[in-house]
């Protein structure tokens, strides 16, 4: 292969390939985080509801998702969604649905741990004031729980961003695919993969630095 040709590192040449993929990676991260948190909170509340018919299915769903590799879940959904709705929806949409369904299981565990970190006295206090279950959750428990779990939640989001590269398995066009395509078209695959690693590193490093700062802030408040 010989020496690396670093002149390849020219944004005006590879930008068009990468830009589209970068947008998709970020978009997928944001949508999957929001969707995963909403669905995950619902799952966590089901598991903590104390009602068997809600607990069992939620626990089964979470444990199943957590015992299968993300790549296999991507392949499953890519295979089954067209069956279920009767038409193909494309790799990108399939990836979005998969990530929401998959991340919900992980977010639900974070939310559950967050809720359980709240002293029981807080729940009793809400009940003593005559609050309904919904009011108690919304006004007393969840605001505290979300603050407690913020650092873990943000770390999970960074992992989610890294995992978006796995849409490679079903051929969706994300940032990694963008670099790969640039590398193939310009005949410089080695440099393209190296550059992809550098870009991912700086993005994730910056994000985890921000998480660390937030963690310190939250710790002072507590």
């Amino acid at each position, binding site marked *: 292969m010989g020496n690396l040709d670093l002149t390849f590192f020219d944004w005006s040449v590879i930008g068009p390939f990468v830009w589209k993929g970068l947008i998709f990676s970020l978009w997928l991260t944001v949508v999957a985080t929001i969707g995963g948190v909403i669905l995950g909170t619902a799952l966590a509340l089901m598991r903590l509801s104390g009602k068997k018919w809600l607990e069992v299915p939620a626990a089964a769903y979470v444990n199943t998702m957590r*015992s299968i590799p993300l790549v*296999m879940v991507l392949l499953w959904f890519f295979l089954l969604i067209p069956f279920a709705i009767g038409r193909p929806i494309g790799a990108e949409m399939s990836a979005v649905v998969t990530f929401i369904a998959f991340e919900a299981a992980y977010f639900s565990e974070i939310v559950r*741990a967050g809720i359980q970190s709240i002293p029981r006295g807080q729940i009793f206090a809400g009940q003593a004031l005559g609050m309904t279950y919904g009011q108690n959750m919304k006004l007393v428990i969840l605001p505290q729980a979300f603050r407690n779990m913020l650092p873990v939640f943000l770390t999970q989001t960074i992992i989610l961003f*890294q995992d978006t590269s796995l849409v490679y398995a079903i051929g969706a066009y994300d940032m990694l695919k963008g670099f790969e395509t640039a590398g193939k078209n310009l005949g410089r695959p080695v440099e393209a993969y190296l550059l992809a*690693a550098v870009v991912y590193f700086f993005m994730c*490093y910056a994000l985890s630095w921000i998480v660390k700062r937030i963690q310190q802030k939250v710790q002072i408040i507590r």
Partner: protein
Amino acid sequence: MAWDWQLFCKETATGEIIAGCFGKGGDQTYLNWILSAWGWTLTVALAALVVALLMGLIMGTLRTLPNSPWLVRLGTAWTELFRNIPLLVQIFLWYFVVPAIFPALNDVPSVILVILALGFFTSARVSEQVRSGIQALPRGQRYAGMAVGFTTPQTYRYVLLPMALRIVIPPLTSESMNIIKNSSVAFAVSIAELTMFARQAGEETSAPVQMYLAVTVLYAISAFTVNRIMRVIEQKTQVPGFVAAGGMGAGH
């Protein structure tokens, strides 16, 4: 729809159904194939786990050393480097970029490269757990080691690590399960493991549902077995009266 599980008794090249489901001589059924794929998954995962535990333990310990800022920096740099690049990108780095820079690595089998990639990736997470395990110990433990005249290595060997390693068993259990799941990413460089099998056999037989189901079940069994083994280790090594506190963590 009736599912045809006899599929697994088919010979992969001719498509004939073989009695007893195991191919003889040069023949290979899908059952043979999926079992060998399972073997590859376990080989890659367990070898990577050894690499991850070894490097993670070293780097995590280095990060807690007193009076050695450069070793602390080395451990931190290692952890940040391997933690902040997606696993798939790291596998491509080892597979395409590293051999291009060091031509001597061209002859190394790709399985070894994938094991190193998965092992180093996971070592960053292990290092993080080991570091917080050591830091979770009361400061008096370190002072106690110094007070009896131990050198720093002795303090770690006899005082800090024995307790810290017990604390990190629960998070290491989930890392060990993660490594089995993460080994699926090796399909991207054509290692003949379970995910690769699912994709190829699913296409060849036009019965992806059965193939995916079998593979999914094998992954679940593997992860569950690892979980039980770690549980046994945890109980065997438990110090009476000492219960490690569980925390929340992010991960896959």
